[in-house]
């Protein structure tokens, strides 16, 4: 055999060997029953929980230019961690895969402006609600459409996949026959929705009001209507993790009684969204 070919073969074999080693290494971490392992680690004698967040969801959670997690929920989580005596680290994840990541044990909770819905509640437990929000509908400033046109099904609507804005539109505009399924465009993230609204491919964008306000800040767009969906945010935790749920509920309760809660609401312009 030609030396060049055998050299290549050896490299290929080495690659295969390394990738197999990687697999078995990964498997040995899993529990034998095949159940997902919580990612909590003990550092010293303090438990560290990994919190999954949407990295592009201001004002609740976002990654700043230095790569640090910021936001209302991030600050809240840090306070609760201190209050309840554990540590937290933040892991940005794709929003439409964040519950599966929680179920698979990649993260310990989702604390990132997640609306409590029936479908989600089937899979995970939610903490006590800590914020209530409405859905907002934004248009270009030069658009002649009104909020009533949107509600009557005259607009092509853009929404982020997996958000309650998308689900609201499916249930209230598509299922009722007001718009065709083609008139709701799904995007990977909300900045893309805003870009396409600016490009005028869509007439309206639907999203949670505080985040929508943040996303269109400085752009020639405005919110022309709000829908009171009565939805509330909660922290999502695996069903079997009742101890963590207890800690987070106790922490939330303490936080909402503390002056810091009001400071946070003011800082992130969420006054009026708190149930207390």
């Amino acid at each position: 055999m030609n030396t060049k070919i055998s050299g290549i073969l050896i490299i290929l074999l080495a690659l295969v060997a390394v990738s197999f080693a990687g697999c078995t290494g990964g498997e040995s971490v899993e529990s034998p029953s095949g159940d997902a392992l919580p990612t909590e680690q003990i550092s010293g004698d303090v438990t560290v929980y990994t919190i999954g967040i949407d990295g592009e969801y201001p004002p609740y959670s976002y990654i700043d230019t230095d790569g640090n997690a910021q936001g209302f929920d991030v600050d809240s989580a840090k306070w609760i961690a201190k209050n309840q005596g554990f540590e937290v680290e933040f892991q940005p994840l794709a929003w439409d895969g964040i519950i599966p990541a929680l179920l698979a044990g990649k993260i310990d909770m989702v604390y990132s402006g997640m609306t409590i819905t029936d479908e989600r509640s089937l899979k995970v437990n939610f903490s006590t609600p800590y914020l209530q929000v409405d859905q907002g509908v934004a248009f270009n400033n030069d658009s002649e459409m009104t909020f009533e046109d949107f509600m009557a099904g005259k607009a092509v609507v853009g929404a982020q996949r997996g958000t309650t804005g998308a689900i609201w539109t499916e249930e209230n505009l598509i299922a009722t026959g007001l718009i065709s399924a083609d008139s709701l465009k799904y995007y990977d993230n909300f900045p893309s929705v805003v870009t396409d609204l600016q490009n005028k491919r869509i007439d309206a964008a639907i999203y949670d009001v505080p985040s929508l306000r943040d996303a269109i800040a400085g752009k020639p767009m405005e919110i022309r209507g709000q829908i009171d969906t009565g939805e509330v945010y909660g922290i999502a935790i695996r069903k079997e993790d009742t101890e963590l749920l207890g800690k987070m509920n106790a922490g939330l309760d303490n936080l909402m009684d503390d002056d810091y809660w009001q400071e946070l609401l003011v800082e992130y312009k969420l006054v009026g969204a708190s149930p207390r």
Partner: protein
Amino acid sequence: MDADFLINILLPALWEGLLVTLKLIILSAPFGLLFGTLLAVGRVYGGFFVNLFCRFFVGFIKGCPLILLLFILYFGLPSVGIYLSALLASVIGFICCNSAYNSEYIRGAILSVKEGQMIAASALGMTRIQAIRHVVLPQAMRRAIPGLSNEFIYLIKYSSLAYMITLIELTGAGKLIFSKYFEPDVFIMIGIIYLALVTITTVGANALEKKLAIPGTQGR
């Protein structure tokens, strides 16, 4: 995953998505083949500038991840005033990608046709174009079928990127269901459908290869 979810929610959504996937493939594949052939002929027989253009185009497409190409076509072009629909942007992206790779298979096949055939054709009074069209390409295209069918299979899988620019095809339809109901089995179902599409393509390509084979030229 229970039967009710499968029959009433998952399958109807995937069916809608599958129709879009098929539409994407049907709109892209013929142009991918046509432009792939032109690119290959341009590279083998074209003059300096045609050759340079074809090489540049193929090199650019090969070096650009398809998802990036789709983003440029859909989100980037509006900044210069070109507004493509999601369908058109996807089809253009797929045609570019498909034709660039097809051209390499076809170019290889053209180079495998012996030089003497070209000379013999001109001796018979054929022009260069006639010789390419009637002598070289019929042989080359037959030899390119295995490679082209491979690329067609890739095209089926390229189509799964269209949902990233809002066109809800098979994968996108599945992802929507998944992001609402969190049933990981959705992806297994999608995988089965893609496998079926690919299997049909493979069987079809084999049949085509057999049907087009010229006795005595390819048997060994």
